[in-house]
């Protein structure tokens, strides 16, 4: 890794750490930073000193921290898969939500909830979570594959077809989710609504441990594909000429990216725009080099989502804003800004 890349990644890590601590401290029960450090030191066995109220420790360990960690995982997963998918589609506008991957994941999660309700209630907890996760993952894979096949010809992805396929998949999924909602019983309804808005409210150490492998694997493997993704930016044929097994690489990226997106959607519903704007911010501020953009998107995505979740649960306290609403409200203006600047650079071949 070049020195500059290392430095930027290190700075981003510091930012993430700061946001994590801040987010752990702010809320209905206030925890000061010394108290926070004291609780952490006490819990990890480094110190016997108790400079905090037991209630604060309970809130931090059982409510805040799992939520912060969940935000970090989901933000990292969405950020890195967004960056990887943009590289794969060779298009800065590709985003899991926009091209229908999240919708596919939601659809399959809802199918599991509504149609398999008997099994679902029987295997609650981590196992039940895995069932929904796997379904969401499968849905995400299926839609990615479908969208990719629809929009790629001769190794080239046409952006118009890509976005149209995304619109088609999104409305198909919305229609089917609507149908399932209509069929759903009263007990199932809140669970379904949860998916369409997105929330980290369901955070617990159980959901964190269930989600962990689905995020850790892509986050650690995708950076190794960064160099190949750079080459892929030149074109499929060009990447092949540089000795890259393009078909294999694309498969790996689709599997890893959908793994992260599918599992994130299963835990927190659709959280839009993270996968779109995070890689963009990095590209505009630093470089398009995927050796920075891929790992950087994971870290910055984690920081942004954790920060957004902090805002979501404090702005209208004691109530809570669904985080999907917040990211859409922040994300849409950024997205519009991207469209305008790209248009001015004449990069959009629409």
């Amino acid at each position, binding site marked *: *890794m*070049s020195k500059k890349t290392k430095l930027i990644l290190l700075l981003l890590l510091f930012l993430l750490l700061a946001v994590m601590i801040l987010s752990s401290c702010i809320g209905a029960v206030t925890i000061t930073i010394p108290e926070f450090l004291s609780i952490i030191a006490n819990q990890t066995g480094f110190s016997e000193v108790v400079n905090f109220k037991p209630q604060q420790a309970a809130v931090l360990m059982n409510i805040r921290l799992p939520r912060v960690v969940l935000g970090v995982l989901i933000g990292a997963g969405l950020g890195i898969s967004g960056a990887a998918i*943009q*590289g794969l589609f*060779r*298009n*800065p506008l590709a985003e899991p939500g926009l091209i229908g991957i999240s919708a596919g994941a939601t659809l399959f999660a809802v199918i599991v909830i509504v149609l398999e309700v008997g099994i679902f209630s029987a295997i609650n907890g981590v196992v039940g979570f895995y069932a929904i996760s796997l379904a969401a993952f499968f849905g995400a894979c299926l839609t990615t594959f479908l969208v990719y096949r629809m929009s790629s010809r001769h190794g080239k992805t046409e*952006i118009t077809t890509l976005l149209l396929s995304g619109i088609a998949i999104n409305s198909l999924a919305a229609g089917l989710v609507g149908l399932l909602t209509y069929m759903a019983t009263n007990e199932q309804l809140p669970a379904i609504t949860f998916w369409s808005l997105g929330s980290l409210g369901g955070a617990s150490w159980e959901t964190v441990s269930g989600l962990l492998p689905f995020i850790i694997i892509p986050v650690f493997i995708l950076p190794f594909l960064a*160099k190949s993704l*750079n*080459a892929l*930016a*030149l*074109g499929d*044929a*060009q990447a*092949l*000429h*540089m*000795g*890259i*097994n393009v078909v294999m690489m694309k498969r790996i990226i689709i599997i890893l990216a959908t793994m992260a997106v599918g599992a994130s959607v299963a835990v927190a519903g659709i959280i839009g725009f993270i996968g779109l704007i995070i890689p963009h911010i990095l*590209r505009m501020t630093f*470089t*398009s*080099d995927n*050796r920075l953009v891929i790992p950087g998107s994971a870290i910055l995505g984690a920081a942004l989502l954790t920060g957004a979740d902090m805002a979501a649960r404090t702005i209208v306290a004691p109530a809570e804003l669904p985080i999907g609403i917040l990211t859409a409200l922040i994300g849409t203006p950024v997205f519009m800004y991207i469209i305008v600047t790209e248009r001015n*650079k004449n*990069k959009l*071949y629409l």
Partner: protein
Amino acid sequence: MIQVKNITYQIGKKRLISDLSFEVKAGELLAVLGANGAGKSTLMKLLCREISPVYGNILLHGQDLKQYKLPELAKLRAVLAQQNTISISFMVSELVMMGRYPHFKHQPGPHDVEIVKKVMEETGITHLAGRDYNTLSGGEQQRVQLSRVLAQIHDCPEACLFLDEPTNGLDLLYQQQVMELARKLADRGYSVICILHDINFASRFADQILMLKDGQKVALGTPMEVINCENIHETFRINVKLMACEGYNCPLVIPATIQT
């Protein structure tokens, strides 16, 4: 060295390349001429192993192309494709460095940096190093891509270089420079295969010329042997006049009237 032995490529019943054979030794430049749809690009794809011949085989340094692993192949041949648009933009120096990708794992070594610097000087794009690729003119982009391709095989003597219409979109000065560079590389020991449209460029710079029509060989030989009115008429369906030119062995080709 690259040997093409009786290759045929077809999609369905349509033959795009029929029973084609030729050989390019180290230090030779072969120019491929042909009208649109003659099979030049298909031939290029076959040589690059983007597609495989239905019959016949292609040998690179005596070994069948299919037996090479992709990373191995990347160190033995580089390709300048015809279309080079990218949607996620890179800085010029980063893009040229991509040519070195087959040679390092994660980060370039000093050797790679040195080569990138050298090829950028050779193609005259040093002043563009810090620019965004997508803001360059078509001709500048073409030269950047050429630098990337050269960087890939710069330290691999006897490698093959495939150029698909390398003078596309360049002005006269750079067309000449690119062809001179191709010639220089051949003289250094590379086997160069170059698709061209300009017959005079081909006869001026190539050791051998292959003329293609409907995927079949019309003529193959030195410029002196193959540049004549009959072959050109056969290949391009145009009438030409030949004009002797002082200082050149091969006559210049001048268009006469178009005839169908």
